[in-house]
């Protein structure tokens, strides 16, 4: 049976209904059996209809008076008994209905039914997000802008209420349920054809792995984005065939490594996520001794990055929770702490990284360090996106926000697959190559190039895709031509070409594009508009291809229109 809610109602209403029927029937039967007197004084017996009519309005306390004739005393005796009998029965029934409306179990079942129908009605591609927090909130917001719908499941009822208050547009169906259960995933629509991915980013690695495995078993085709912070767990996940495993600590470690050894690769990576295409002076990391405060997962990941980069470092082991318990404060920097910092060599260190789990401690570590060594470069780990302003005003040179990084990568994986590929490929290049690319980008487009992806199908590139289907050969150079004058080129650069057979980083102009291939394009605002015109409009495409206006009608010169 589909709806448990209907069954709950039926079950709960059985006794009240029985009580009402019994009390009614007793009263009615009694009334028909007791002799009365009509207005002429003749004896009469109430018919069943009379009795039913009278009891109906008596029991519901409407009370129109005695009908059809004034009652005799024996009748009144019986009626006074019936009043209490039926009214009690009636109130019991109503009381039960009211209790039923407030019933938690029923409300929950109704909620599930509503959620299920909402998920079924989703016609666009959607992803399932397990757990609602700052990271997933940002992912949901950005995916909504891309037209990708999301469904949220969280164990916590309050989080779900938060989503409802958030008023996402389009609506995000959400329900509170145990995310580790297969029924929950089925309810969230994991079997639906338009379900594209499941996002599992819980703190607990084991829980993540368990859910990922379950998703894989429920739907083999689905993409699973799962967070894993340890090597063993990652390996285990890889073995069960999960391709996209996110380790925020590994990402940070890589970033630090590239920042030190290949700043231009780092620049390209952060540019993809919205940084401008230029390294500010204060963004160059110093080379020298590093101090890492906090030796947790984050601290160790950073140390790994430094080690790969060949940088000397020391740890100061600060555990935020223990520190707070011991000192009864979240402010770092008493005499003892200063001594620790001095012992670690703060005076001659080039950089200090505060990587504990507590934002307040991180901030105070860095301000203490700055007092001891005003020239030191400061890096902070920020744990939650919410108090961004404090970090901004604290004049810290660099802030790592784990949540933001996780959100960025997840979003890219779902909505921007080519960008994701691009990042992977540039990691294999060296700094000189990256510097060259940055130079080329800023020379052709400027400091703030737009980045977008396009797939050459009729949906996104109507004219171009159809022309390619017809067998017309078009290379990338043609796509760069200006709509105003085909001999000139727009400010446009193709960063990545990808089709079923090959992936080419910085494809050459002579490359002939194939139907269904996808492109990662960097350009400026105007070039984007031109480019979109050219690939979608037959006349524009014809012009940039042949340098002449397409004419239709009796001349039929437009080769593209056949």
């Amino acid at each position: 049976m589909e709806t448990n809610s209907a069954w709950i109602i039926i079950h709960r209403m059985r006794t009240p209904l029985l009580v009402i029927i019994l009390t009614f029937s007793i009263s009615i039967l009694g009334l028909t059996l007791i002799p009365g007197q009509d207005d002429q004084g003749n004896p009469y017996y109430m018919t069943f209809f009379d009795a039913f009519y009278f009891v109906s309005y008596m029991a519901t306390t409407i009370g129109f008076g005695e009908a059809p004739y004034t009652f005799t005393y024996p009748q009144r005796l019986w009626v006074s008994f019936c009043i209490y009998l039926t009214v009690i029965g009636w109130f019991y029934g109503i009381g039960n209905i009211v209790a039923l409306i407030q019933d938690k179990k029923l409300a929950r079942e109704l909620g599930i039914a509503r959620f299920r129908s909402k998920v079924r009605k989703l016609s666009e591609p959607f992803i399932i997000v397990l757990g609602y927090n700052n990271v997933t909130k940002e992912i949901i917001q950005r995916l909504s802008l891309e037209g990708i719908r999301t469904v949220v499941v969280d164990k916590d009822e309050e989080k779900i209420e938060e989503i409802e208050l958030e008023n996402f547009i389009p609506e995000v169906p959400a329900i509170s349920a145990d995310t580790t259960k297969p029924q929950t995933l089925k309810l969230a629509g994991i079997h639906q054809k338009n379900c594209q991915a499941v996002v599992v980013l819980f703190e607990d690695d084991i829980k993540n792995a368990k859910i990922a495995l379950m998703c894989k078993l429920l739907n083999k085709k689905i993409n699973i984005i799962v967070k894993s912070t340890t090597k063993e767990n990652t390996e285990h996940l890889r073995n069960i065939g999960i391709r996209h495993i996110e380790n925020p600590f590994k990402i940070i470690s890589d970033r630090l490594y590239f920042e030190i050894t290949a700043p231009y690769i780092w620049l390209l990576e952060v540019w993809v996520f919205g940084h401008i295409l230029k390294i500010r002076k204060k963004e160059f990391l110093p080379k020298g001794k590093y101090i890492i405060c906090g030796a947790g997962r984050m601290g160790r990941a950073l140390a790994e990055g430094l080690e790969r980069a060949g940088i000397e470092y020391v740890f100061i082991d600060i555990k935020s929770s223990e520190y707070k318990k011991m000192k009864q404060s979240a402010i770092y920097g008493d005499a003892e702490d200063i001594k620790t910092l001095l012992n670690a060599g703060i005076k001659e260190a080039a950089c200090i990284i505060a990587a504990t789990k507590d934002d307040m401690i991180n901030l105070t570590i860095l301000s203490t360090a700055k007092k001891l060594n005003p020239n030191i470069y400061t890096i902070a780990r920020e744990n939650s996106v919410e108090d961004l302003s404090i970090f901004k005003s604290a004049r810290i040179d660099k802030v790592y926000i784990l949540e933001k990084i996780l959100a960025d990568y997840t979003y890219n994986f779902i909505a921007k697959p080519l960008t994701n590929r691009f990042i992977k490929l540039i990691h294999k290049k060296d700094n000189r190559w990256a510097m060259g690319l940055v130079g080329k980008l800023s020379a052709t487009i400027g400091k703030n190039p737009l980045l977008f992806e396009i797939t050459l199908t009729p949906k996104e590139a109507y004219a171009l895709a159809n022309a390619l289907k017809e067998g017309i050969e078009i290379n990338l150079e043609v796509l760069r031509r200006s709509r105003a004058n085909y001999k000139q080129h727009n400010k446009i650069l193709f960063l990545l070409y990808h089709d079923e057979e090959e992936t080419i980083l910085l494809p050459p102009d002579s490359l002939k594009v194939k139907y269904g291939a996808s492109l990662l394009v960097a350009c400026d605002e105007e070039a984007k508009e031109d480019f979109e015109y050219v690939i979608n409009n037959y006349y524009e495409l014809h012009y940039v291809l042949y340098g002449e206006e397409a004419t239709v009608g009796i001349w039929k010169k437009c080769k593209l229109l056949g």
Partner: protein
Amino acid sequence: MNIQKVISGFFFILAMTTNFGFFYGDPANLDYHSKYELFAAIIVNLIATILKLGDKTQLGSVLLATSLVADIQLIGAATVWAFAVYGLGGLNLEATVAVISMSGGALLANIVSVLLFIGDTLKSKR
């Protein structure tokens, strides 16, 4: 012995027997049919219906359906009777036959219901 089975069995069969009691006799003459028996049949049938509510099995659904049929037919019979007496100013032959034949229809539904109930009981191993 299961007390719930006794109670539900009692009402299912009582629903059929009271129904039969009303139905039995010359269909053209209401003197052979007691209105009290019709009343009893309606009440017992309603109770039987409620007892059948909430059973999620296939058999439970069919049992409930038969009961609902019986209810509708019996209440229909009572309505025709009341309408004939108060609306048309007396029972004519057509109304009388309609009342009795409707209760006959209800009786059929009740018989099916009891047969299903007995069949289920026979199949049960407990």
